């Protein structure tokens, strides 16, 4: 969870204690739900059964559990206590030799942090042992920000590093890994475009999954809709929701009926057309030694940033939208891509979609029901104080 956000949300519920985190750009959310059985004692609420929620600084909480090996050796019991009149979250470690370490952490009360997602609505899902996925991502450099996951011909699944628009395509190394269908426990992939998501948070989950030896399920849909990673066992339910790069071109086209994927097949016969290339090079006057002619246009789908021309956006807006409406405030990640806006630039309140399943990533304070002019400011996740 610390790989995702700086604050740890503790939400006790009747079905268990949920630990959650969200990142600053609201493009990543994770929750770990520990069933009551996981604990020796679990009392979610006070005498009136009121449930308190709080959030603490991740750093402070992690500080209590700093050294895992020594904790395993010395700590017998750990008590976490939150009693509303007190203004501290108490974490008490009962250690050997009668030593008790009590940590009083300041906390803030908060509203429920809940990302809106529904794995049932995801068209595609893949389930694989964590080890397979961990072995797959090892081929990508540690510094790689985003990775693209898609299905190819023959049922193969591909992972490819995502090359940003700003990077020169002819200068960037592209790595692609193909996994056969039978490496997965289940494969249920709907035809459609590949999705791109942030690798960093995914790697974090993979490390946990590998350590706990649980299979990991990936639920995804069209680009722009979040991808949900799930891990389940008897007492633990893990969910990681990541926004995916939206793809304005594909959102305006219906998915192709015959399910042709955009990914080229892995084959041994690569286009080898260097003779004509060399002729082209030799006959034109080039100054520099490398003399690479401008590369032909890439069939790369590049998402347009929100700050694109209002004219371009108008093309994609449905009739309900007012021309010239400023673009919806989008979720930005560090690289300035728009995330989590599955419907591209369409207005968010469409009568056909039920309020929970808007393309919004988080349940927002937007009024449900009827279409209306897009709000000028979209709240993608409620602020902890409920205000924004």
């Amino acid at each position, binding site marked *: 969870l610390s790989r995702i956000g700086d604050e740890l949300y503790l939400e006790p519920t009747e079905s268990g204690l949920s630990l959650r985190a969200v990142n600053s750009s609201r493009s990543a959310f994770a929750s770990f739900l520990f069933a009551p059985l996981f604990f020796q004692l679990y009392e979610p609420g006070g005498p009136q059964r009121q449930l308190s929620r709080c959030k603490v600084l991740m750093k402070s909480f992690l500080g209590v559990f700093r050294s895992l090996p020594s904790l395993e050796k010395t700590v017998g019991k750990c008590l976490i206590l939150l009693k509303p009149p007190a203004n501290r979250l108490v974490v008490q470690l009962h250690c050997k030799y009668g030593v008790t370490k009590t940590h009083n952490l300041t906390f803030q009360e908060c509203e429920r942090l809940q990302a809106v997602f529904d794995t049932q609505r995801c068209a595609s899902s893949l389930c694989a042992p964590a080890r397979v996925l961990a*072995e*797959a991502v*090892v*081929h990508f*450099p540690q510094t790689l920000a985003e990775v693209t996951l898609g299905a190819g011909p023959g049922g193969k699944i591909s992972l490819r590093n995502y090359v940003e628009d700003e990077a020169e*395509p*002819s*200068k*960037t*190394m*592209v*790595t*692609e*890994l*193909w*996994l*056969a*269908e*039978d*490496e997965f426990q289940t494969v249920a992939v709907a035809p459609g475009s590949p999705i791109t998501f942030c690798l960093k948070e995914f790697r974090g989950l993979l490390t946990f999954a590998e350590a706990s030896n649980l299979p990991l399920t990936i639920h995804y849909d069209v680009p722009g809709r979040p991808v949900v990673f799930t891990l389940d066992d008897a007492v633990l339910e893990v969910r990681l929701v990541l926004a995916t790069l939206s793809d304005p071109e594909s959102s305006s086209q219906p998915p192709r009926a015959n399910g042709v994927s955009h990914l080229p097949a*892995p084959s*041994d016969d*690569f*286009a*080898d*057309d*260097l*003779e004509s*290339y*060399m002729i082209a*090079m*030799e006959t034109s006057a*080039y100054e520099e*030694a*490398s*003399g*690479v002619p401008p*590369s*032909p246009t*890439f069939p790369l789908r590049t998402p347009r940033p929100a700050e694109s021309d209002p004219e371009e956006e108008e093309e994609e807006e449905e009739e309900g939208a007012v021309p010239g409406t400023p673009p919806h405030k989008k979720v930005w990640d560090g690289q300035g891509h728009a995330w989590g806006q599955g419907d591209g630039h369409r207005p968010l309140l469409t009568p056909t979609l039920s309020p929970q399943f808007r393309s919004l990533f988080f349940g927002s304070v937007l009024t449900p029901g009827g279409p209306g002019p897009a709000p000028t400011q979209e709240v993608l996740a409620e602020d902890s104080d409920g205000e924004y």
Partner: protein
Amino acid sequence: MRFRAKIVDLACLNHFSRVINTIAKLAKTCTLRLTVGKLYFILSDKIANGGVSMWCELCQGNFFNEFQMEGVAAEHNEIYLELVPENLSRALKTAQSAKAVKIKLTNKHYPCLRVAVELPSLSSSSRIVTHDIPVGVIPRRLWNDFREPSVPDFDVSIYLPVLKTMKSVVERMKNLSNSIVIEANLSGEMNLKIETDLVSVTTHFKDLGNPSWTSEDGCQSSTQSRDPESMAEARIDIKKLQQLLAGQQVNPTKALCNIVSKRIVHFILLHEDVSLQYFIPALV
């Protein structure tokens, strides 16, 4: 113009990866020259490199199980490519347990070296990882820039001390000074010296041995007439020397250097199937 090659043997793959790792530590961008029998990694002495140049030669037969190359034209059966060796190094890094590695020159959208690694997997078909490394094709008219450097008319030629020792000495000296003086004589003695305002440090090596070179006409080289005790020296950038030494992952069969006094130091590192020459010019 075509190129495809395949490595199936793990030991060869390992060896090749180590060569690439060494090259990657020495040059950010370099030229790969492919001929029917050999691969060359070349760095020519541009100002941008700080005047260093490199010539590394490998016999393809020692590494590749399959190697097919068709050059630019029949009478120029060679290919010159500009690439970033670090990319190749990264592609090979996770291939160490591969069943096979294929390298092919392609031009789908832009010229690339496609490295396809076939990895073992528990499933019926192998996992394939492909790395498309962008390369620049160097036109024939520029090939002259990449000719093999000739051995300079050196003053002293001497075998290097054990590289590991030399490396640790140079690494410590690097913290104290930006330049280092290499001096050696024909009696097998070499000194590495640094001098700053505060401190001067010299490390002495002896009994290193001097290789004998015969010149083309078969007679003894001109160094015969040189006073064996007299030192030839050159002051070079210490970082370049440290890079060269740090990049060596395996002890070479032969390691020697030729010093042209106050001009250039020419290092020759020979392994069984790889030879590496590295030129570091003297600082003015």
